[in-house]
């Protein structure tokens, strides 16, 4: 019984894997059995080589992670700075009179070569400063979260809270203790909110 069943299954397997075989013969062979819809295929498990393991450990290490996050933050900050730097309020007044311009005048003034050069310079400066800010934030946040998580050996929302607190405090270092406390609280709350919103944990 077991033997016959086994050979029957093997027949089904061969006819299912061969697309050119007619479906009627397949169904005739299948009568009285459970309907076999699809032959399951299993990929063999391939163990990673030592080089692959080393590469994975390298890319998962905290310094590399924080540098990557800093670079991504820098790129994002540069784009943000470029977007907001174009709508700079200082470009809507004439430099030598300081009077506000009408929209038409300001557009006309903005397309003068000197003004264009000035605005491009301004935009680049603002883009660079945004890039530095965002990049620093990303680097400090990602690095501190990675360190905190690997020390705690847990993956939950408290990592984000602590990393946000550290980041907010360290970026407000020059503002004194009060500003550091405030930065800690706000950035921690913000990052916890973002985590909840993105449903990471």
């Amino acid at each position, binding site marked *: 019984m077991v033997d016959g069943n086994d050979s029957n299954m093997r027949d089904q397997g061969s006819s299912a894997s061969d697309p050119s075989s007619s479906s009627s013969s397949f169904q005739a062979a299948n009568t009285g059995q459970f309907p076999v819809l699809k032959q399951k295929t299993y990929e063999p498990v391939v163990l990673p080589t030592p080089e692959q393991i080393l590469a994975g450990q390298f890319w*998962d290490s*905290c310094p590399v992670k924080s540098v990557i996050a800093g670079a991504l933050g820098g790129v994002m900050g540069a784009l943000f700075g470029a977007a907001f730097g174009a709508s700079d309020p200082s470009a809507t007044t004439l430099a030598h009179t300081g009077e506000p311009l009408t929209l038409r005048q300001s557009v006309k003034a903005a397309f003068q070569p000197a003004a264009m050069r000035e605005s491009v310079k301004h935009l680049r400066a603002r883009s660079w400063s945004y890039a530095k800010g965002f990049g620093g934030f990303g680097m400090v946040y990602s690095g501190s979260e*990675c360190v905190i*998580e*690997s*020390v705690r*050996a847990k*993956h*939950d929302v408290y990592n984000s809270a602590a990393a946000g607190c550290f980041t907010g405090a360290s970026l407000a270092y020059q503002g004194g203790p009060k500003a550091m406390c405030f930065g800690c609280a706000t950035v921690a709350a913000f990052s916890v909110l973002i985590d909840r919103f993105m449903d*990471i944990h």
Partner: protein
Amino acid sequence: MATPPNSNMSPAEKAKAFDMAQLEMEYRVDLYNAMTASCFAKCMDTRYKEGDLNVGENSCVDRCAAKYWQVTGIVGQMLGGMQQQQQQPR
């Protein structure tokens, strides 16, 4: 430890060596499976949000395996010491 079978041993000795090697292998596999199971139960988040281990799970597994190995060594040493103590008074 597994003895090389090509050395000039009597068949009885050879069979004994193979038995010991088999026992050792079974013990190792049991140890490995127990360690894997308990560290998986301790460290893994079973909601499986992402395919890879995250940083926390990684260091948890690291510590769990190290501790398990250390405790296994300590227990082995203690058992060996107890056996020696039991054998010596006779």
